[in-house]
């Protein structure tokens, strides 16, 4: 088991047994996570306004730039998201075993079985029996990977839409195949719009499960995505050790 790499801090721990702080998430991944999380929230909020501008600016046109700001923020956040994507892709190869690409794809038959066991524990049937993973459990692997795919589609469709405003420009040149692929730009916009709801559904579940896991697993509310590691019982067995 790898040793700790991060500063110790106050934690709530079970009274009995041997415990160990294990570093799992490197700083780049954690940075990436929080920047991505922030930009996605911003993208969804600004995107939904762009999709249906509920607030209307009254008065004279020159003194307002409401939609302009929303779009501007959307595009800045879009840029940030792409930066995080680059970091994450690099880290798929440079990261530790919990961060590498293998850790994001459930491939072994055992993983699929464990996925079910994990689901079972979420509905609180024999939670003691749930499979233990240090990194992502197969459920997480599946949902995070799917989310990365959705985010990729958002980036693709987003930049394809963005490219429309400047047909001579780089994004248009790179992505003008996206429209025909989807069956027209309106369909691209449609997909971009619909996929936003995937985030809106994912975020509450994900945040809840993360907080819950923190509390349940080591009695802490400070997520491993902040500290970078988890505290685990020394004699625990992990499927992905």
């Amino acid at each position, binding site marked *: 088991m790898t*040793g*700790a790499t991060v500063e*110790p801090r*106050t*934690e*709530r*721990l*079970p*009274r009995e*047994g*041997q*415990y*160990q*702080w294990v570093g799992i998430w490197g700083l780049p991944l954690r940075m990436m996570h929080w920047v991505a999380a922030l930009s996605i929230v911003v993208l969804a909020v600004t995107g939904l306004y762009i*999709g*249906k*501008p509920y*607030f*209307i*600016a*009254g008065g004279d*046109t*020159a003194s*307002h*730039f*409401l*939609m*302009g700001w929303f*779009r501007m923020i959307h595009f800045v956040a879009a840029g940030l998201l792409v930066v995080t994507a680059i970091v994450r892709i690099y880290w798929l190869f440079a990261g530790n075993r919990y961060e590498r690409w293998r850790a994001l794809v459930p491939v072994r038959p055992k993983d699929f079985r464990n996925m079910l066991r994990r689901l079972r524990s979420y509905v*609180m049937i024999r*939670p003691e029996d749930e499979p233990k993973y240090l990194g992502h459990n197969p459920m997480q692997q599946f949902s995070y990977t799917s989310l990365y795919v959705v985010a990729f589609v958002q980036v693709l469709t987003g930049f394809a839409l963005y490219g*429309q*405003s*400047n*047909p001579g420009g780089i994004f248009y040149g790179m992505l*003008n195949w996206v429209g*025909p692929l989807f*069956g*027209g*730009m*309106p*369909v691209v*916009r*449609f997909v971009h*719009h*619909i996929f*936003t*709801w995937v985030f*809106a*559904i*994912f975020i*509450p*579940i994900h945040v*809840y499960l993360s907080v*819950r896991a923190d*509390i*349940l697993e080591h*009695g802490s509310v400070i997520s491993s995505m902040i500290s970078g590691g988890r*505290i685990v019982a*020394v004699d625990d067995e992990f499927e992905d050790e």
Partner: protein
Amino acid sequence: MFSPASYPWAEGVSLGEHLEQRGISRREFLDFCGGLCVVLGLSRSAVEGMATALQAMKRPSVVWIQLQECTGCVESVIRTAEPTIGNLVLDLISLDYSHTLMAASGHAAEEALHAAMQENAGEYLLIVTGSVPLNDDGVYLTIAGRTAKTILEEAAVGAKAVIAVGACAHWGSVQAARPNPTGAVGVAEIIKDKPVLNIAGCPPIGDVVTATVAHYLTFGRLPATDGDGRPLFAYGARIHDQCPRRANFDAGQFVEEFDDENARKAWCLYHVGCKGPATFSPCPIFQWNDGTDWPIGAGHPCLGCTERNFWDTMTPFYGRLPDVGGFGVERNADLIGAALAAGATAGVAAHAIATGVHQARRKRELPVVERPVGGGTAPNSPSSGKE
């Protein structure tokens, strides 16, 4: 318009001589060429070249075939602007076949067509309006007992260039909308061995057609196009980026319902379904009918009529997003999406409570301490923690 008699230009006489006979000075002519260059997006340095090329010109033969269509595109070309000098441009051609305008009918008309194709083989310009129905061996359109496909293929053989005018010839337009009962397709689906220029729109602005013909006659080639075969000089920019209401869009000022206070201030039509953000078209720049106005200018959202499949991908016209698969995005998808998100949040809350209850039972069995952790093992001794 295509009125060869308006300022007839006889065979064997160059355009230069013709203009001279009509008392048009070289200065006026250069001005005209300058205007044309602006329309075509060419630099001023092209003016001289254009003038020289045009002046040396003989009237080339144009064959215009009309397939499965509504004749709106022909009407649109009949509305082209520029009263006197525009006539000139159109006098550049000899319109040898045109159902809408030609005097002859029946056999005499078909003879005129075949004569034009033979006498000008390899030289004539083929203009096509209308789509080609392919289902059931093409029985959905016959002329003189022959199918549209046969007629088009035959006419294309000797054509120097093919210009598909309007959404029908471009990709099938309304008759190709779901479920496309006749299997209507555009010209480029049939003619694969030579480039087909698509003048998109239902109908397109007539002036775009005449400018394209002028371009072809001047430079001996068709203008540069985008990926869909549409000439860049007209379809190179998006409506949304050229729209006078764009300032209102950026400001967040939208018409919420037709004829509301905001409509009376000519605010942006995004909210009521404007397809300008997805549509490449010269409407805001060229405008319609001699620069009089254009759809958005007259208060109606753009329908996206220059884009392929717009009858299916841009509908419902008064909604922002397409009704993919008849689902009703704005009515259903957003509702379902929001409901699922709310459901997820509620589910999460319920789950948290259930977990809390579950934990409460376990906690009694497994007390917890609070203390600092080092890098290694947790201390064994209980601390004076809260619990």
